[in-house]
């Protein structure tokens, strides 16, 4: 089971199609009061507007405003979601203006996830049918209004480019002219959607609607919010998670020009100032003693050891096919391996920030969030106010990657703002952002497999240990020791494996918070499974592509992407000494993908990723340019993790602090990335994360091909690849 199926299983707020449309229609008019707009500010809906649901508002001036239930964080959702609505509404993209949705779980929950959140690559998967229906519903009502005015059968009218046309008489009415009357029409029970061959927008490369503001500096992110009178604060939190403030001498900080106030919390200190320069200078001048608390001595090795130990016990069975133990006992060859993946920070380019104005009986928040309703609920709790007394303005997001599914930054900002008269923008330094993140979990996996005389796998066993992020973030979805995220990519493999046994041992590490990180469960599982399949091919003495191919008889979509990547990458052709190609294959987030990475390993052990060929079948492609961009993006993100990504603890403290110690792939290291898309009429699969999970094993397998060294622990350790002088 995958995360997108969890709503139907675990959640009763999943919305039926009728509830989705009708519930939305009921709230039509009053939606726009508290929105912060990316492209300008509109007035509230007026009585002459046509707002048939929570996503569309057409003013009598003809302006079409679309409310975006998913937030833009680079993945192109503010272009592809409007494409779905506009396709059926029959408007062109130049005619629409966009607004961020306010917090409202009932109206804006992702139908697959059951909560209002942008994550798990499921915006398009959730929106694909419902938001086309939203557009079609509005169009039917506009056509009905025109037909009524003309006194003709609505079947003789058609809609196009924001107009209703009566071909027989050549009469036309613009949507704006029909807004008031359309609002009086009955909401249709059932609307039919276009057949794919009639699509005008879907499947064509659309220009990003958010691009112009992002090249001229006018795009507004959360960190750019400037409510009148806003003060700027920055903070330092207990360097050890769970520690407490022991003593504070803030005399020198108070003397810094521009510093207005020092806010002391149980486990943090904030400096409030006229500008961030003064706040940072004040922060540096603080003399603080901390009580480090119970995790004072914690080191990463301890956590790794505990996880390794856990894989020797037993866990919850996540999937069982056949009898793996029996098959293993009778196998001709046995292969065993242990894998480890490190903690990772998100390091979004926009550091954590949140602006809050706490008033007597309400609280106003400016933030860029992937989960705005969660922010509202948790901020309300922190402020001691009812949820509806918290107004949240969402913004464009300067990198999410899962970090902004969390509301810890908003809670912290509320705690500080309660002590400040007027609005305060709390901006984390980069050091604070990296050292007080919520991290991709550390994982430890123990695998064994048995091969028959032909090298074919007859048994596969995998027991892995790590935390369940879902258990904290969406508790109802953690059930009987399992959750759909932790296991995605470890079970339901593309390969034909007759005896298969996978167990998950939940172990929550002490002293370090964990969270979703781009490509979530698969960021761990795909590295492990695709490295291990590669080990099996090597143990069988067979080519890595040919070996996988033999296990894909029952999976033609997976085989097609594998064949395509092999062909386009020149698989099998000679490479210079020290270079190698690695292949990896996955079906996660509803999309099939294969990658071939080409690496070069120098004598000192430095790894350069030269070229990556990706082939994918993600079902129907809505915006092909976005698909390509997301793959390029995912590959760079994953390659960064493979080559550099590691958060370590020493004495309970995160050792990395800025981009010097937590390195990013840069322009001079970026590989060429070729993307090949398989045409498909299946429903869309997820796109935002697939590239990330797959590139890590592709690189590790390429390093094996280049050097004969199998790296079972990420990130790449160059010392293991050094050649003797």
């Amino acid at each position, binding site marked *: 089971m995958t995360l997108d199926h969890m709503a139907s299983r675990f959640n009763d707020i999943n919305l039926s199609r009728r509830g989705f449309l009708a519930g939305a229609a009921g709230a039509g008019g009053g939606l726009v009061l508290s929105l912060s707009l990316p492209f300008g500010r509109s007035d509230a809906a007026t009585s002459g507007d046509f707002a048939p649901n929570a996503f569309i508002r057409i003013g009598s001036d003809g302006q079409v405003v679309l409310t975006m239930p998913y937030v833009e964080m680079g993945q192109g959702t503010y272009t592809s979601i409007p494409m779905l609505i506009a396709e059926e509404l029959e408007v062109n993209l130049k005619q629409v203006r966009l607004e961020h949705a306010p917090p409202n779980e009932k109206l804006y929950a992702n139908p697959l996830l059951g909560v209002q959140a942008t994550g798990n690559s499921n915006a398009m998967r959730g929106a694909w049918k419902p938001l086309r229906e939203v557009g079609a519903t509005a169009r039917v009502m506009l056509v009905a209004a025109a037909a009524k005015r003309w006194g003709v059968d609505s079947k003789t009218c058609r809609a196009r480019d924001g107009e209703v046309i009566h071909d027989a008489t050549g009469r036309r009415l613009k949507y704006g002219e029909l807004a008031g009357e359309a609002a009086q029409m009955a909401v249709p029970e059932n609307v039919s959607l276009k057949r794919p061959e009639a699509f005008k927008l879907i499947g064509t490369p659309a220009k990003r609607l958010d691009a112009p503001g992002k090249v001229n500096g006018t795009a507004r992110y959360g960190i750019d919010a400037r409510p009148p009178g806003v003060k700027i604060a920055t903070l330092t939190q207990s360097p050890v998670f769970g520690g407490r403030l022991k003593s504070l001498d803030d005399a020198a900080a108070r003397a810094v020009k521009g510093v207005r106030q020092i806010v002391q919390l149980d486990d943090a200190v904030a400096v409030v100032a006229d500008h961030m320069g003064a706040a940072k200078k004040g922060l540096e001048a603080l003399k603080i003693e901390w009580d480090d608390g119970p995790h004072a001595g914690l080191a990463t090795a301890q956590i790794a050891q505990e996880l390794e130990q856990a894989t020797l016990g037993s866990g919850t069975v996540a999937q069982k096919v056949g009898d793996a133990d029996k098959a293993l006992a009778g196998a001709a060859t046995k292969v065993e391996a242990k894998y480890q993946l490190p903690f990772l920070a998100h390091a979004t380019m926009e550091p954590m920030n949140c602006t809050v104005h706490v008033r007597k009986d309400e609280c106003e928040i400016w933030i860029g969030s992937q989960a705005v309703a969660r922010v509202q609920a948790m901020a309300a709790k922190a402020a001691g106010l009812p949820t509806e007394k918290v107004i949240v303005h969402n913004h464009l*997001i300067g990198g999410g990657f899962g970090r902004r599914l969390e509301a810890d930054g908003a809670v912290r900002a509320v705690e500080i703002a309660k002590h400040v008269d007027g609005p305060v923008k709390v901006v984390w330094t980069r050091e604070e952002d990296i050292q007080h993140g919520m991290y991709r979990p550390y994982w430890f996996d123990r695998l064994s497999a048995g091969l028959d005389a032909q090298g074919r796998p007859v048994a596969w066993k995998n027991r892995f240990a790590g935390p369940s992020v879902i258990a904290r973030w969406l508790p109802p979805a953690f059930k009987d020791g399992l959750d759909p995220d932790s296991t995605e990519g470890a079970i339901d493999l593309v390969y034909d494996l007759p005896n298969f046994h996978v167990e998950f041992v939940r172990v929550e590490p002490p002293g370090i918070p964990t969270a979703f990180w781009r490509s979530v469960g698969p960021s761990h599982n795909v590295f492990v499974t695709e490295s291990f399949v590669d080990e099996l091919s090597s143990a069988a003495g067979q080519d890595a592509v040919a070996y996988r191919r033999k296990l894909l008889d029952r999976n033609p979509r997976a085989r097609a992407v594998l064949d395509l990547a092999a062909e386009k990458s020149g698989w099998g052709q000679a490479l210079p000494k020290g270079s190698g190609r690695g292949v990896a294959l996955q079906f996660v987030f509803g999309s099939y993908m294969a990658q071939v990475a080409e690496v070069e390993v120098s004598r000192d052990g430095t790894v350069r990723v030269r070229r990556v060929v990706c082939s994918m079948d993600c079902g129907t492609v809505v915006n092909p340019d976005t698909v390509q961009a997301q793959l390029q993006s995912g590959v760079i993100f994953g390659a960064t993790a493979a080559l550099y990504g590691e958060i370590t603890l020493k004495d309970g403290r995160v050792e990395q602090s800025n981009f010097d110690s937590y390195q990013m792939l840069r*322009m001079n290291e970026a590989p060429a990335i070729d993307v090949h898309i398989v045409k498909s009429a299946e429903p869309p699969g997820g796109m935002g994360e697939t590239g990330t999970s797959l590139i890590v094993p592709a690189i590790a397998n390429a390093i094996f091909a280049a050097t004969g060294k199998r790296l079972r622990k990420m990130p790449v350790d160059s010392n293991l690849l050094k050649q003797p002088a």
Partner: protein
Amino acid sequence: MAITININGSGHDIDVDGDTPLLWVLRDVLGMTGTKFGCGAALCGACTVHIDGVATRSCVTPVDSIGKSAVTTIEVVGATDAGAKIQKAWLDHEVVQCGYCQSGQIMSASALLASNPHPTDADIDDAMSGNICRCGTYVRIREAIKLAAQSNAKGG
């Protein structure tokens, strides 16, 4: 003591400590939020502006070091020939994703193009490797710079 700095063609009197980084004067004092904060240590390039045409990390540039030099930010770089070509190439080539680093990328790229109308791949690496993009738009940034350089060739 007030400091006067020339930003985007206008003089601004600023009453902050002289060692205050230019970035915070732009963003918090003057409200010019197009220039972004990424690291505070000249490691990521998000805060890049031009000082007398040279790409400079504003997060480590004290305001009292600027003197009479001219500061140019993302808000007006489109008024320069190179800036306009880079911005157009960014749009034509659909470079942006989250977009947060792109002000800095565009400032670095336009300074490169102004001083070197036909940069090689190595020139691009040199000029752009100080700018981190977490969305990984590097492939398109490189192509867009080359696209802008081609328009240099056509335009003479």
